[in-house]
């Protein structure tokens, strides 16, 4: 019934990420920012590669890499340059491995970061992730009417001296926080699985944003629990099990919504 205490930090971290990613993921899909969410974890990998290569602490290089990437992205949007975002994705995948090229042990660790197959989480990691990620999610959820206004009528927002670009940067910062903490701790697959799948599962049934956020969070927690049980029972990797469960729920949700019309 209860898992081995050894797994508590891992489960706690995954649950915190499920809550944060459920909230942010809903807004990512509604705002059509999926490519940003796909690119940021690759950028985190550049920071992780630098920390491996030069034996630096894990978080600061990743934080700098994400901050630079988001600043570049905001500038590119302001200038109407659309090609930079896919470029960042490719740069992340390529440069992260070039930084640690010809270093076998580091390559294996980087592969772990990408695939999330051999994830080890300490209590310290769990605490480090939970605060910022849950804080970012809570802030994003409390501001839901603002995101709705900016999506539906930027002119109405500007009339009240609300600057859409400033709010866009704010959203990217919240998203970047969750992606950075999640990728650094649990790997790319887990972050993307919990960011996209629960939100996409909840959206076909959505009538209002607060309820959609709550549903995405509950589905994310269910994914983590079911993924953990399957991973333990079948001796499968945890992240991929969560992704598999999430995708099955997504299919069921979309099929049921299609049948319901």
């Amino acid at each position: 019934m209860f898992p081995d205490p050894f797994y508590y930090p891992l489960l706690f971290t995954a649950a915190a990420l499920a809550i944060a990613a459920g909230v942010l993921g809903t807004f990512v899909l509604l705002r059509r920012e999926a490519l940003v969410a796909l690119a940021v974890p690759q950028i985190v990998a550049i920071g992780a590669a630098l920390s491996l290569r030069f034996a630096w602490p894990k978080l600061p290089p990743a934080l700098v890499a994400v901050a630079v990437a988001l600043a570049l992205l905001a500038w590119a949007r302001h200038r109407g340059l659309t090609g930079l975002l896919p470029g960042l994705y490719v740069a992340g995948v390529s440069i992260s491995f070039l930084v640690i090229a010809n270093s076998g042990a580091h390559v294996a660790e980087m592969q772990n970061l990408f695939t999330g197959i051999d994830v080890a989480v300490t209590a310290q990691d769990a605490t480090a992730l939970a605060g910022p990620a849950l804080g970012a999610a809570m802030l994003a959820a409390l501001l839901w009417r603002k995101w709705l206004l900016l999506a539906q009528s930027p002119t109405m927002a500007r009339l009240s001296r609300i600057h859409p670009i400033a709010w866009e940067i704010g959203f990217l910062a919240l998203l970047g926080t969750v992606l950075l903490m999640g990728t650094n701790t649990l790997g790319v697959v887990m972050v993307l699985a919990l960011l996209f799948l629960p939100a996409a599962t909840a959206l076909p049934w959505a009538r209002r944003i607060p309820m959609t956020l709550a549903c995405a969070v509950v589905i994310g927690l269910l994914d983590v629990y079911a993924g953990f049980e399957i991973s333990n029972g079948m001796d499968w990797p945890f992240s991929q099990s969560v992704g598999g469960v999430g995708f099955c729920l997504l299919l069921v949700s979309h099929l049921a919504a299609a049948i319901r019309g």
Partner: protein
Amino acid sequence: MNDDDDDDTPLLELADCTLGYARRAVVCVDRLAVHPARCLGVFGPNGSGKTTLLRAIAGLLKPMTGEIRRVPRLRVGYLPQLRTIDPTWPMSGLDAASLAASSRSLPGWVGRGRRRAIRRRMEQLAVRDLAHRPFRTLSGGQQQRILLAGVLAIDPQLLLLDEPTDGLDLRSRDLLVETLRQEKQAGLGIVLITHDPEELAMLADDVVHLHVPDAPGEPSHLDLRTPARANAATRIATSELNPRN
């Protein structure tokens, strides 16, 4: 204070303005005023600078030259075009009506008092029972009345309308126009951008016609007419649509 004096004071006045972006002038305005309880219709072909003029009136665009004077603390409401509303965002009728109110506080929260005002306006516009229905499932007319109820709930002195009846059926259009006429009689100043001559005739007291410049790169010039009768506005607009008539 004399009421007549109040009525004569424009909410907003443009004097010797050149409006445009970067160094490109789009519209030249010698003088233009928007008064309480009057509707200024803005009419002109695509590319004539209607949106530029609206942005300047809204205070979103500073004039390159000239001056725009506003009454202090002018409350401006804006009714978005229906086609700009993204139906993928899940929202109820009440959420949609709360958009304008949510722009008035930093976190976007809508207090109890504002919610009451929104419900009262929804009741007035006969859309109160749609408050909990998904916005995307409603007809265009219902959606537009819900958005209008929300904008009126913030109690604007000046309402900006950018093609408000675009895509509506005739009955919905007439209902919306009738509501706007009542609000105008109650003292609301309105600026209406439209392609619909009938709408101009029904609502506009003054009509601004923006002429497309003869030479490319030249700014549009503004021709202000105050129709003696309501249907004169239609004639102005229709003659521009069909120059041979």
